[in-house]
Structures are given as C-alpha cells and as structure tokens.
C-alpha cells in the first residue's frame, strides 16, 4: 500500500507551536524507510497522524486512495500495525498471550486461527517461557518484545516501529532485524523511527526530520554519509561510517587503514 503525506501541518491543541510544518512524501509498497531526527522533531507525531490518532490541521494523508480520517479509520488501521515508543503503556491485558491476542480479537479472527497466530508470534520474539506472565513481572525489553509480537500476529501491510528496539539486548535486536528482513521479503512496507544510526543504516531510504520539517529524504547510504547535514540536524553518523571518515581525514589509504586495523587487532 502506498502512503502519501501531502503538505501535512500539525499543531497540538495545547501548544501554539507548529510541530509539523508542511510534510510531504510518498512511500511505496514494500519500501523499508527509516525516519531519524532529534528529540522533539516530530517523529512520533508523524506516526500518530498516519494511523489517525491525530488529524492534520492542513494537508492530507492517504493510504492508496483512502484518506486517513474519522470515517475510514477502522479500515485503515486493519492495514497498519504500530509499536509505540513506551512499551509500558501499550500492554493492555494482564498476561503476555492475552495482550498478543488483543488485536486479533478486535478484528474478529476465528479462535482456532487466533491460537496459531498467537503461538507463532510468541515464538518469533522468544517469549515462550513468559506466556502467562503478568506485565508487572516483565522487563522493559520483554514488554517491547510483546508489543512487537502483538503486531506480528495481526500481520498488517504496513509496520511502523517507533523506537521499538530501544530496550532490547543485542540478541533481541539481532532477532528483530531478522524478523524485519523477512517482513520486507514478504513485501511489507516498514517504517522505522529510530535514534540508532546503525539500525537506520540497514534501511533503503532515510528521511531526516528537524524541528518539524523534512531536511533530507533520500537513499540511506547517501543521507547518512552527509556529515554536515547530520551535524546540523543534531544527529550522529553511524559508527562504521564515522570511523571511515575519520580515517580518511587523516589521509589513510585503504592499505594504511588495513595495517592500522591489524595493529589494533594484534594489540588485543
């Protein structure tokens, strides 16, 4: 499904500052996009607009040809799954399996199908041992795994992941990236909002937000290679690219770099 943002402006009722100042972009089916930007740049707000929890004060958002607005929300939300930033406040039920089943119940999935989907989702995030656990007995990362499982079970066309890995351990992250890669292969559209530049580097396309405006939208490798742009957007380069640039600054050629790395490795 194609996502279209057409000159979207947004302001919270309480504040008088414009949070999004005319955002336009199109994301095609099957694209894997990262959205990066400093704290408060409007990333989460953008995600909430897309799923119709907020509505723009100007401009419009479309999913294929359906406009995101009140009367279409039920249809639209069937196609979008979102993991929010704070895993504590999206755990609805009193046990892991019930929380994963919550979204399936809402779209009236038949019970036998639901049981299979819940089982698969629990397995995908390695939470088999915590199936009946109450959320208050889970860690932040475990709650994040449950939140991810909750949308995997629904298997929507579009996945929005708002800092969905911020609390995961290295193994959890690795598993997560594997899951996302299989989703991409299955033709799903994936939008990853993240502060982890190494994670962003995996995506195909990168959108940079700064104070509510898109300052760059392009191929991830180009965007994340632009040191000045990232610096002026209060962001960092991915560590691998940063290292590369630092070495280049010191006029190290490929051979010298290799030697220097060998030396480093041998010292250890």
């Amino acid at each position, binding site marked *: 499904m194609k996502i279209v943002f057409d000159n979207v402006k947004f302001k919270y009722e309480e504040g008088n500052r414009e949070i999004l100042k005319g955002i336009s972009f199109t994301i095609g089916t099957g694209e894997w996009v990262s959205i990066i930007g400093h704290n408060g740049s409007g990333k989460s707000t953008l995600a909430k607009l897309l799923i119709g929890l907020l509505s723009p004060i100007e401009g419009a958002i479309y999913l294929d040809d359906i406009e995101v607005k009140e009367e279409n929300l039920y249809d639209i939300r069937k196609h979008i799954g979102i993991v929010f930033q704070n895993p504590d406040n999206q755990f609805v*039920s009193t046990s892991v399996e*019930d929380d994963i089943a919550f979204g399936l119940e809402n779209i009236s999935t038949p019970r036998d199908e639901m*049981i299979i989907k819940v089982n698969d989702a629990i397995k995908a995030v390695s939470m088999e041992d915590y199936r009946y656990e109450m*959320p208050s007995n889970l860690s932040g990362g475990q709650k994040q795994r449950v939140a991810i499982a909750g949308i995997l079970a629904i298997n929507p066309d579009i996945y929005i992941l708002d800092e969905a890995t911020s609390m995961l351990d290295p193994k959890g992250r690795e598993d997560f990236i594997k899951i996302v890669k299989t989703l991409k292969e299955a033709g799903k559209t994936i939008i990853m909002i993240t502060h982890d530049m190494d994670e962003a580097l995996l995506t195909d396309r990168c959108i940079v937000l700064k104070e509510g405006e898109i300052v760059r939208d392009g191929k991830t490798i180009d965007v994340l290679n632009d040191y000045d742009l990232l610096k002026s957007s209060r962001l960092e380069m991915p560590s691998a690219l940063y290292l590369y640039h630092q070495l280049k600054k010191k006029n190290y050629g490929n051979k010298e770099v290799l030697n220097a790395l060998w030396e480093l490795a041998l010292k250890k």
Partner: protein
Amino acid sequence: MNRNFVLGQYVPGNSYLYRLDPRVKIISTILLMVSVFFLTTYYEILGALGVILLILLSGRISIIKAIRGLKPLLVLSLFVFFFQIFFNQTGTVIYTSELVFSISSIVSIIVLTFLFFFIRRFIKFKFILLLIYLASIYLSLAYLAYPNILYSYTLNIFDKGLETSLFVFFRLITVVFIATILTLTTKPTDLTLGIEYLLKPLKVFKINSEEIALIITIALRYIPTILEEAYRIMDAQASRGADFNSGSLFKKIKIIVSLLIPMFIISFERSDELADAMLSRNFVPGKEKTKYHILRWKAIDTMSLVLSFILLGGSICLFIIV
C-alpha cells in the same frame, strides 16, 4: 512501608482448584462467605475454618502463602479481638487482673514503644513483634508498681466476652481465607472472564459486561505499575532528602502532595497512550469480537458447585436449629 502489595496474588500451580471454571469459583466463594455468616458460635466457626483448611490442603495450596494473604487484615482482626475482650462484659468473670499505672510502668511503656518502632524497621515478622509488644505492655502494667500506684484498673475478662472475641476473630479470618483461595488460584485473566460471564444478564439493563470486564482488566493491569511508579518517585524524592516516615504533619502533607502531583500527570499521560495503543490495534467499544479464552463447564465444576450449596445448606440448618 509494605512494598509487596500485589492485588492479583495468583500463585501458579495445577491442582483441581486451578482447573475449576472461574465462574464456579466466584459463585462458590460467595456461597461460602454467606454460609460463614449463618454460623453463630465460635466452635462452628472453628469447624468452618477446618473445612476451609481442608479445601486448601486438598488443593495443594501452601498454608504459608494463604496466611500471607491474611497479612493486611491481621492488625484489624487483632484490634477487633481486643476490643471485644475489653468491652464485652457479659457472662461470668473467668480472669481478673489488676493493671496499675505507676512511674515505672509508664516509663516502661514509653521505652517499649520506642523499642517497638525502632526494631520494627529492621525486622521481618512485624506481626509477631506487635504481639510481643502488646504482651510486654500487659506485663509492665500488671507487675510494675514502683514507687507508688497512680491509678489502677481492674481488667475482668468475661467468658462471653472471650467467646465473642474468638468468634469475631475467627470469622474474619475464615472469610479472608475463602477470598484468598479464589485469588491465589485464579489468574486475573480468568477472574475477569468469569465476572464477564456472570454479569451477562445485566444486558437487560443495557450494561455491557464486556466493557466492565475490560475496565477491571485495565485496573488490575495498572495497579502494580502505578504503585511501582509511586515508589520510584518516592525513592527519587528520598534521595533528595524527603523523609516519608517522620516529620510534622504539615511536612508529611507537603511530601504527599509532592508525590501526588507527578503521579496524576504521569497517569494522565499513561491513560492517553494506552487509549492510543488500544485504538491503533483496532479496538472499537461495543463492537462484536471473537474471544481468545473460552470457558468450558466440566463435571468437577458441577460437583464443586453442589458441594458449596451443601455447605451453605448445612450452615443455614445449624442457624435454624440452634
């Protein structure tokens, strides 16, 4: 401060008590509680307590865990017990004791009180400490008469008074035990599911039992989280010098307000985000949906229900006959 308070005290296990239909468990709990109130003497109550203990044992529930469930009510039941002993003066005197107030006994009480509150902060078995404290106060009042008696009071314990206090004490404990069986063996999910089914008839009054169940679920879900948060804020404020355990009343109120304001703000945010999360997962209030959990009535459910009715019948018979 007691930080271990958990509303859903569910302890995993798998005896027949765990496998019973939550509907049966809820109804039986109510039936048994009602039967307790038909009992009129303390030995009948002791019998009932025996039956409850049998149920606990047959369900392989650890008695220690069940007693832990009594904890919040122990002090209250103790208070009720002593209140009855002191003020219920009917029947014949079975025990007399001269309680004297003298300089030495008063000093002793003050020292004991100091010690009690001091030791309390370092010890685990607070209830036993409380009992020791009360016993030592009694001993000081009974035996310390030096240098002269300022005031003396004759404590008379009457047989009826003792009986009633035992009766009230054991009745309270029995009722709490019954409730504990339910909460120890039933997952919050099943409990709300049971309530949902039992409240279905309310549809006549246009009350949707599914929504009630959802509200209960969310309350159960968030009570531990919000408590945890309260402790976190308290710790944060304690690390900046706030003292929640002492200080003048005014100071205490100030500290409590400083706890409540962030709690309210955080709770508003939480509820907003929770609603967002539910809506984005296609929650539509009142819409028909399928269910992940279903309840199945088994033979053992019928048996348990019949047994509960028999117990209720028995206690009603006792009530009528005696």
